[in-house]
């Protein structure tokens, strides 16, 4: 069970000089095995929401439940994938994929077996002894997914995981993410800046308001689930609808040259 319940969540960062309220009264429910895309203006607290769900940022107010259990610390089967993939350049591909298991004290033999299988499934087995610096962007992303697979994650929290990739690789990996979800049926919270990606990978698309982030709208997206969805009029229609919603939230209105805060 890996349903997600967020109730009246508020998170405040103690910034230099003044405090920053990143999230305020955010309420969201995600069913077990449901893929949800989250989109919203830059700086509205999307990353913060994922970090809170991963047990890395403390909630000031409200409740956070994963699988019915309050989140107080990193949960065993929650995988967090950040924009730069969070790989360690000093560890080999196999070692990176095994890190979650190692940290949890899984025996070496078991670790090897599980990791070999995960790397195999993601098509990077031949690079097991390379370093991340020797991989292409797409393969690094696959490695980050292999790490999640090795942990047998049932909740995938992804923060703009594909935004550093070129268009072709990105589409390839969007297909891979979809395929993995269809095979495994894990719960997904995917933060993205791409409207198309949100519509392709989210059964529901959650639109957040500008900071402090709250849920501004939720778009149902029942057509999602097939690679060919991309080429249908329904897909385009939904993208247009989402773009309008985002414009209404002022997502495109920010000062043109304002620095992006990740």
């Amino acid at each position, binding site marked *: 069970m890996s349903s997600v319940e967020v109730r009246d969540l508020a998170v405040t960062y103690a910034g230099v000089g003044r405090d920053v309220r990143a999230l305020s009264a955010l309420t969201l429910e995600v069913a077990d095995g449901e893929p949800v895309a989250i989109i919203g203006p830059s700086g509205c607290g999307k990353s913060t929401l994922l*970090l809170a769900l*991963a*047990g*890395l940022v403390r909630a000031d107010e409200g409740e956070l439940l994963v699988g019915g259990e309050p989140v107080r*610390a*990193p949960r*065993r089967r*929650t*995988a*967090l994938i*950040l*924009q*730069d*993939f*969070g*790989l*360690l*350049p*000093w*560890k080999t591909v196999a070692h990176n994929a095994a*890190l*979650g298991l190692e*940290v*949890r004290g899984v025996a070496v033999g078991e670790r090897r077996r599980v990791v070999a299988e995960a790397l195999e499934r993601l098509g990077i087995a031949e690079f097991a002894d*390379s*370093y991340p*610096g*020797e991989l292409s962007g797409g393969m690094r992303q696959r490695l980050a997914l292999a*790490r999640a697979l090795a*942990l047998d994650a049932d909740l995938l929290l992804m923060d703009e995981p594909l935004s550093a990739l070129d268009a072709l690789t990105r589409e390839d990996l969007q297909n891979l993410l979809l395929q993995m979800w269809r095979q495994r049926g894990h719960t997904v919270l995917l933060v993205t800046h791409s409207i198309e990606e949100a519509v392709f990978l989210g059964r529901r698309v959650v639109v957040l308001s500008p900071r402090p982030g709250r849920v501004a709208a939720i778009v149902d997206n029942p057509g999602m689930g097939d690679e060919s969805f991309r080429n249908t009029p329904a897909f385009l229609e939904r993208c247009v609808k989402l773009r309008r919603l985002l414009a209404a939230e002022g997502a495109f209105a920010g000062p043109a040259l304002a620095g992006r805060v990740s």
Partner: protein
Amino acid sequence: MNAWLRRLGGYAAATLILLVGWELLSLAVGSQALPGPVPALTDFARLFFSDLLPHTGISAWRVVASMVIGAALATPLGLVVGRSPRIDAVFAPLIFLTYPVPKVVFLPVLLVLLGIGNLPKIALITLIVFFQILVTARDASRGIPTSAVLSVRSLGATRWQVFRHVVVPAALPDIFTALRISTGTAIAVLFFSETVAGSEGLGYYIIDAWSRIAYSEMFAGIIAMALLGVVLYELLEVAEGRVCRWTRVGR
């Protein structure tokens, strides 16, 4: 292996250039105090086993022990200080106040406290290496990307595991660079401290030859000291290549 050959070839060429330059300089100066490479190398070969090797051994042991102790103490301390804002608040001013003080000035004190043997020399060089590594380790651990730490923590890593898997390896290349840079300082301070007190070590040997006006012997000692520096530097380079293999990829 090819890389090794190329490296050796580089050293051979550089040595040749240095020797020719030295010969020309010595001819131009025309002074007893600057003999050419031929007499110096002749004395180097003649005195190698009897004098140079024992003195070099003692000097090498002093410098290596100091660097190992200095790095072993400073690395963990610097990393912890850099990672913890609370500890840093206390330690940073302390470091900023003490780092710029030239540690050599403590040699007289150390000589009084620790005698004239190995101890004051090792203590002095350790002190110098310690501060260089401390500052480097602190800076390196502050510069570690948050995303790497968050990712590893999200896997359930404890503080100690974050240290072991992220902080230490991330800082290692910088530590090695600092160590390589401090070999120069360490050997300079070694020379100084050996000329001031004691009757062992290359510093003593060089100054002793100088006082006996045995200039070609003095240069044999200088060659030995230079070699000590080169060997230490190369050893660190090799060790870094072994320990930090990932930094060599894609070059």
